[in-house]
């Protein structure tokens, strides 16, 4: 776990940074996929479970409109969750340590909220295609998130393309790269293979747009087939 295994030591300003970095690692990159997956399952299955879809369908609301609205809510919720986590870290860091907020922090937080939402969409494809239960969605997301973090630990044995194509791992590496450039994280402590896999902001943005777009198209198609 790239951003998590860090000792809390140093000046109050450094401790503020440590708290922020840990809030990104634990609060957003680890917890957010699970929260999004639970929310997505509730959102996507609510019409099926309550037989509401036919009433919506005759309004008429199309499957595409319904799916796009749900995905918009997922992205808004993801961003909101990330912002609340950031706010909490700011408040606690200021109270217990010393306020040391960098202007880039809020941008890193927002980007993490959006990237993690994009990175979780492939799981929603699985949920929608298998029409499984809430337990299935939660289990598969926990497995996916834990696996994403395990990949980092296995970095000496894996080709770097693996890190670039697993969305959560890729987001973790990008965050580490940005924090490293800001001098908030010492990247030298990480294995060379891992350092060379850090994506640029442009690369990860393009990758997330592609993942998000392809996933949304597949979810819409699956949902249309599922509802018919």
């Amino acid at each position: 776990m790239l951003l998590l295994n860090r000792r809390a030591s140093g000046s109050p300003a450094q401790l503020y940074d440590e708290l922020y970095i840990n809030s990104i690692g634990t609060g957003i990159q680890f917890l957010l996929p699970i929260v999004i997956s639970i929310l997505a399952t509730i959102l996507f299955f609510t019409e099926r479970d309550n037989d509401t879809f036919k009433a919506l369908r005759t309004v008429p609301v199309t499957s595409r409109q319904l799916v796009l609205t749900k995905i918009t809510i997922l992205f808004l919720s993801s961003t909101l969750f990330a912002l609340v986590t950031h706010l909490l870290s700011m408040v606690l860091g200021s109270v217990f340590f010393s306020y040391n907020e960098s202007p880039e922090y809020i941008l890193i937080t927002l980007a993490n909220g959006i990237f993690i939402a994009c990175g979780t969409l492939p799981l929603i494809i699985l949920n929608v295609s298998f029409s499984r239960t809430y337990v299935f969605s939660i289990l598969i997301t926990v497995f996916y998130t834990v696996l994403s973090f395990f990949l980092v630990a296995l970095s000496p044995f894996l080709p770097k393309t693996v890190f670039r194509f697993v969305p959560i791992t890729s987001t973790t590496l990008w965050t580490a790269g940005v924090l490293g450039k800001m001098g908030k994280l010492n990247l030298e402590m990480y294995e060379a293979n891992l350092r060379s896999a850090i994506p640029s902001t442009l690369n990860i943005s393009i990758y997330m747009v592609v993942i998000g777009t392809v996933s949304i198209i597949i979810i819409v198609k699956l949902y249309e087939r599922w509802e018919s």
Partner: protein
Amino acid sequence: MDELIIETKGLTKKYGEQYAVKNVDIHVRKNTIYGLLGRNGAGKTTIMKMMLGITKPTAGEVRIFGKDIRKNEKEILPRIGNLIENPGFYPNLTGTENLKIFAELRGVPQKDAVEKALDLVSLPYKDKKLYVEYSLGMKQRLGIALAILHDPELLILDEPVNGLDPIGIAEMKKLLRQLCDKRGKTIVISSHILSEIQLISDDIGIIDNGVLLPHCSC
């Protein structure tokens, strides 16, 4: 000749090799109540779903207000109110909240539309009871309130008196008759009980194993 609001031509639905509905021609005249009578599983609900475009026919077509429903959904569906099988609402909201969502989605301009619809089916407005706590009869009434919420010209109601007590059934029959006679609505209702259909309908279509038997006017 009376103006036809619904006209189906050779309407057919097959699931695998099994016919759910076979070659059905229905003609529903304007400002009348058309009763679709048949046993459970005869194909009534499938016909109604095809009328609403929810289910795609294997063959044939449905023309509503003179237009093919599948090609003109956006234009036709807002002019129809429906209740198909069990009413589907969000269980964690009250009846009023559920109706308000649909009023917003349908773009109903009248602010008191929800209150009026609930009043017509004898349900309280701004009641704090959640939908999940409703009795079967209350759920059915709310489903009918949703169907009439946007003051549609055509109502397609699948077993609308299901779950209602005898007084509720009498009230609902009276309401449907009033909607037809005084407010000019055209109504299609289905039931498996002959007496329910006979007393309220102007025309009756009998469905048996997916096939429509010859029409009769009451």
